[in-house]
């Protein structure tokens, strides 16, 4: 925020959009719509993060089945193919305090490798499920993934860009912020649903290529790009 002028209201855009998706989704803990003003008035937890910037604590479960590609014709469900995967670690990997740039995660190293493996670019992504332990992590990852330049994430998320029909629909299930904190496995489940066309009220029309990220406490980033079968 000091470096790039990112604002709390821009964090709020992420919280509001994610909550709207949770309300539509039909399988989420937090479904009551919130406004930017609700976000701005929610109590401060650790400045600049307010209550509505923070993810949930949840009991629950999520699972996916990974199979060899040649086995999928025996299965009932439409397959979703893993097209590219990569993980990356930040500098320094061991201590947050010593990192040259707090806003660059391992995602920045993982993303080019995952996109290259998939033969895709950010412009090909129809829907993204981005690990959202806090709102700002979504913003930083959008930059690290190459959807915009570092420092431009705040402007990118404004105006409903992450909503259904926006330039990059994100966390169509409500994410860790509003669906449940299933450690991000729920993001993989949701991307599979989207690419099968099982997204229900939050289905991104004709979603063919999607992206999901994972994130670890010290800034480790994982990226998977998947294609509709």
């Amino acid at each position, binding site marked *: 925020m000091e470096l790039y002028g990112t604002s709390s209201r821009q964090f709020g855009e992420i919280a509001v959009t994610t909550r709207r998706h949770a309300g539509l989704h039909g399988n989420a803990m937090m479904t009551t719509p919130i406004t930017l003003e609700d976000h701005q008035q929610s*109590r*401060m937890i*650790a*400045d*600049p993060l307010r209550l509505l910037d923070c993810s949930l604590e949840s009991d629950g479960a999520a699972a996916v089945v990974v199979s060899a590609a040649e086995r999928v014709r025996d299965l009932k469900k439409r397959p979703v193919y893993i097209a590219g995967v990569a993980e990356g670690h930040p500098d*320094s990997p*061991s*201590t947050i*305090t*010593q990192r040259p740039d707090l806003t660059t995660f391992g995602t920045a190293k993982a993303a080019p490798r995952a996109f290259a493996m998939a033969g895709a670019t950010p412009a090909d992504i129809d829907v993204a499920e981005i690990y959202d332990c806090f709102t700002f992590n979504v913003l930083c990852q959008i930059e690290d993934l190459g959807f915009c330049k570092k420092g431009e994430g705040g402007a990118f998320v404004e105006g409903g860009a992450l909503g259904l029909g926006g330039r990059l629909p994100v966390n169509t299930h409500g994410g860790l912020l509003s669906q449940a904190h299933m450690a991000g496995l729920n993001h993989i489940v949701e991307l599979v649903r989207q690419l099968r066309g099982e997204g229900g009220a939050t289905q991104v029309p004709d979603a063919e290529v999607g992206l999901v990220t994972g994130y670890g406490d010290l800034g480790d980033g994982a990226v998977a790009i998947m294609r509709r079968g």
Partner: protein
Amino acid sequence: MPDAAYAKPLPEPDRDTKPYWDALREGRLVIQQCAACGKLRHYPRPVCDACYSMDATWRQVSGRGSIHSWTVAHHPFHPGFKTELPYVLATVDLVEGVRMIAQLRGVAPDAIRVGLPVEVAFEQATNELTLPVFRRV
């Protein structure tokens, strides 16, 4: 003054960190330094992340530095912190070239800026443990 009813969690010195806590009790700030390549590292730990040597020494540092980043905590993640809210947790660039985290005392949150000069001070928590804090220079 040591607080007999100190209610907050306390660090437990171990083989890697004991010299750090011992020095703080004497009013000195020491930082671990790789004996092989000379890189300073903080927090204390067994292996150098530059050359992987496990040989380390300790270097007394000035305690002077400047604010790299900070947060103002408004929520007590442990009940012992309730009476201090809100408090400021700062990441400080020490002039010796390594960063450390400690509470920042005596600066209004609105007055904190990146680059604000600070220096370490020592607060006795118990008879055994002294914690570092930062104050504005």
